[in-house]
């Protein structure tokens, strides 16, 4: 079977189009009329596109016999923006294993979150607005995933950022939420600047290459991934003259590209916005800040992988940043009190995992890429589940502080069970999905020749298990530590069912041969489970569990003692190494006080003052002219005589001259 037999592959654009349509419908028409209806329509639209997404994946997987790699197709594209010949930007749908995989993830999680929100957001004033923006986000994310060129990706990249901004700031009357939304937008915007510059740089370089290639370039445009991925183009780019500090446009561009990705995926040191983003409604955190948007950075790197691989040294940077973030965030996660923040840092750490995996491909074996996408796939499900579980807890107890909760397992048995499953999944316990993906990531690190990274990865696995078990125990075991958590009740069915669905996915996702599908040519095939990796990983996880159980399982005094023993290190971790404060200081003191304020002053005082000064000067001269009006008739006469003689002199001078 080939692609033109499949209606959905031909018309994959329908999948993003549906949420967009419902965004317009809900936002413009339904929202003012009937909020409930608006929510229902929004959820229905996304559910429909989810169904189409599964259909698409199903059809697409038929295109190649199991042995061969799956094809890359652009079944549909139209001209959108014509910069100039060779720099035309098309809107289109690029279908390859990675994008199809992401379509499934995005649509599914989004649909489930929509359904979940129907109950979770009930009674909110901005109900309709919420669903409209959620639709917009879904559309943008799908557009990002399906982008056939760098610019469409950037466009949707910005749109997801904007919708994330509006959703974080959903409760716009809460200063904290407003601040968080601003922070998220500005920090990611700063990173997007890198992406923008990368587009300019690569666009210009690729345009030159395209001009050199001449006819053989065909109709492919400079910024198409297809064009950028061509071997001859990559070779030409790699051999261009260096543009800055000995780096070619390719290297520099790829670094900037990664900066953009790091911003979206909240890599250190651009991670500060993600924990604050938890001010938004929990379902939003589940969808945007756990499952989909934050992985856009990983997806970008995976998408532009040929470029990064061709650029020397970039992948090493990716590896370093990813590894550090994984460890750093996991460590901080162990010390946070707010349930959602712990999950946020866990997300950071897992994203670090994915980047790490991508970074391991420097050696030439792109196995890490497959691993990263695989982990992205599984992580989406169990992390979304964790957030939705947390949401259920918040919904019931109206607090996320683990020290106020406790003993919820009796009041909320279903939530408890699902949360436990997700915890095990993320910790990487066989046979849950996390086990397999984490195994592949670590394997990639080991076989990629990065034993140190492998060791760190193991450590992170242990920490992951530790902080997850910590919150799990504090929330669901023991006795209620506050009044709020005493009278909680199980979440309504509309919230539990989506969680159930996610739980199923989180459980079985590991058995999907994702990494084989998405494998690039040249990926070393290693069948089955590599116990050399899985063994230590599982051991680390169990160790983490054990530690957490000992500290938080029974008498909490032990944990206090441990905290005391850690002392200063604990404080540093708890305050996230004061990085937010550093940023704040830079923004307030440097940007506003030292740049903006002086400029505003300079403008009013100096520049505008000069203009007023000219006016004043004119008036002064006028006063001078008036002052010459002494009233002395003979002075006037003398002037007149002088004038006459001056004319004589001028004539004389002119006469002598010519």
């Amino acid at each position, binding site marked *: 079977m080939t692609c033109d037999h499949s209606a959905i592959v031909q018309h994959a654009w329908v999948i993003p189009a549906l949420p967009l349509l419902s965004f317009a419908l809900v936002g413009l028409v339904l929202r003012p009329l009937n909020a409930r209806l608006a929510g229902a329509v929004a959820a229905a639209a996304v559910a429909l596109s989810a169904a189409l997404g599964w259909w698409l994946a199903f059809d697409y997987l038929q295109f190649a016999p199991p042995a061969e790699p799956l094809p890359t197709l652009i079944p549909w594209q139209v001209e959108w923006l014509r910069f100039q010949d060779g720099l035309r930007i098309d809107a289109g749908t690029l279908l390859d294993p990675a994008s199809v995989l992401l379509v499934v993830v995005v649509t599914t999680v989004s649909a489930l979150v929509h359904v979940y929100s129907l109950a979770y957001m009930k009674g909110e004033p901005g109900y309709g607005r919420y669903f409209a923006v959620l639709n917009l986000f879904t559309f943008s994310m799908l557009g990002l995933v399906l982008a056939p060129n760098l610019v469409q990706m950037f466009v949707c990249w910005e749109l997801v950022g904007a919708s994330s901004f509006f959703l974080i700031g959903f409760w716009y009357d809460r200063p904290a939420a407003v601040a968080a939304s601003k922070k998220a937008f500005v920090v990611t915007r700063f990173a997007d600047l890198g992406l923008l510059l990368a587009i300019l740089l690569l666009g210009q370089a690729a345009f030159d290459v395209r001009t050199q290639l001449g006819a053989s370039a065909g109709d492919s445009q400079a910024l198409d991934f297809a064009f950028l991925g061509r071997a001859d183009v990559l070779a030409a780019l790699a051999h261009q003259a260096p543009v800055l500090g000995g780096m070619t446009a390719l290297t520099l561009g790829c670094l900037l590209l990664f900066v953009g990705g790091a911003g979206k995926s909240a890599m250190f040191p651009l991670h500060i916005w993600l924990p604050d983003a938890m001010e938004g409604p929990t379902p939003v955190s589940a969808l945007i800040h756990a499952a989909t948007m934050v992985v856009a950075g990983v997806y970008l790197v995976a998408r532009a992988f040929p470029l990064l691989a061709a650029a020397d040294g970039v992948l090493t940077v990716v590896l370093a940043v990813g590894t550090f973030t994984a460890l750093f965030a996991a460590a901080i996660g162990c010390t946070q009190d707010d349930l959602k923040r712990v999950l946020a840092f866990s997300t950071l750490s897992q994203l670090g995992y994915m980047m790490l995996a991508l970074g391991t491909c420097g050696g030439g074996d792109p196995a890490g890429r497959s691993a990263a996408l695989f982990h992205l796939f599984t992580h989406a499900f169990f992390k979304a589940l964790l957030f939705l579980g947390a949401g259920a807890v918040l919904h019931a107890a109206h607090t996320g502080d683990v020290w106020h909760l406790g003993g919820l397992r009796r009041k909320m048995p279903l939530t408890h069970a699902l949360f436990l499953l997700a915890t095990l999944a993320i910790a990487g316990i066989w046979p849950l999905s996390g086990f397999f993906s984490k195994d592949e990531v670590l394997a990639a690190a080991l076989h990629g020749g990065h034993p140190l990274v492998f060791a760190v990865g193991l450590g992170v696995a242990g920490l992951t298990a530790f902080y997850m078990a910590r919150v799990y125990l504090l929330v669901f075991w023991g006795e209620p530590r506050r009044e709020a958590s005493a009278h909680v009740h199980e979440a309504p069915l509309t919230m539990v069912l989506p969680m159930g669905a996610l739980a199923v996915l989180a459980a079985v996702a590991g058995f999907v041969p994702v990494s084989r599908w998405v494998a690039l040519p040249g990926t070393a095939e290693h069948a089955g489970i590599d116990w050399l990796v899985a063994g230590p990983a599982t051991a680390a996880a169990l160790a983490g569990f054990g530690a957490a159980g000992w500290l938080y399982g029974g008498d909490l005094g032990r944990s206090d003692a441990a905290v005391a023993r850690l002392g200063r290190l604990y404080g540093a971790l708890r305050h996230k190494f004061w990085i937010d404060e550093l940023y704040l200081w830079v923004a307030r003191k440097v940007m506003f006080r030292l740049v903006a304020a002086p400029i505003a002053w300079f403008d009013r005082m100096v520049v505008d003052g000069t203009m007023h000064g000219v006016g004043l000067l004119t008036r002064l001269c006028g006063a001078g002219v*008036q002052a010459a*009006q*002494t*009233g002395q008739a*003979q002075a006037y006469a003398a002037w007149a*005589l002088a004038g006459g003689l001056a004319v004589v002199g001028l004539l004389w001078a002119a006469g002598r001259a010519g």
Partner: protein
Amino acid sequence: MAENLASGATGLHAWLLVTSALFSVGVYGLLTRRNAVGILLSLELCLNAAAVQFVVFNAVRAPARVDGAVMALFVVAVAAAEVVVAMAIFVLLYSRRRTVDVTDLTGDGPGHAGGAP
């Protein structure tokens, strides 16, 4: 100039010296006399200097014609008219200000940028 005048009758230079002196004296007086009448007299000197110069040039440059002399006559007439007008104004001024000393007339001076006279 000197040479193409020298082509005329001798003594032209002398005449020109006279007229120039006359004119200069007039101008000097016009600029320095404080009494308006004195200024008027100085003006007459200037005009007469010009008139004389017309006659002289007539005699030297175009002895056949009389136009320079005619001009001189008209100058005299005009001068007379000028005196009449001037005197009228002096009288008016004296009746209003009790002075014809032009340096006392500092209307228009500093601070007169505004206000209706």
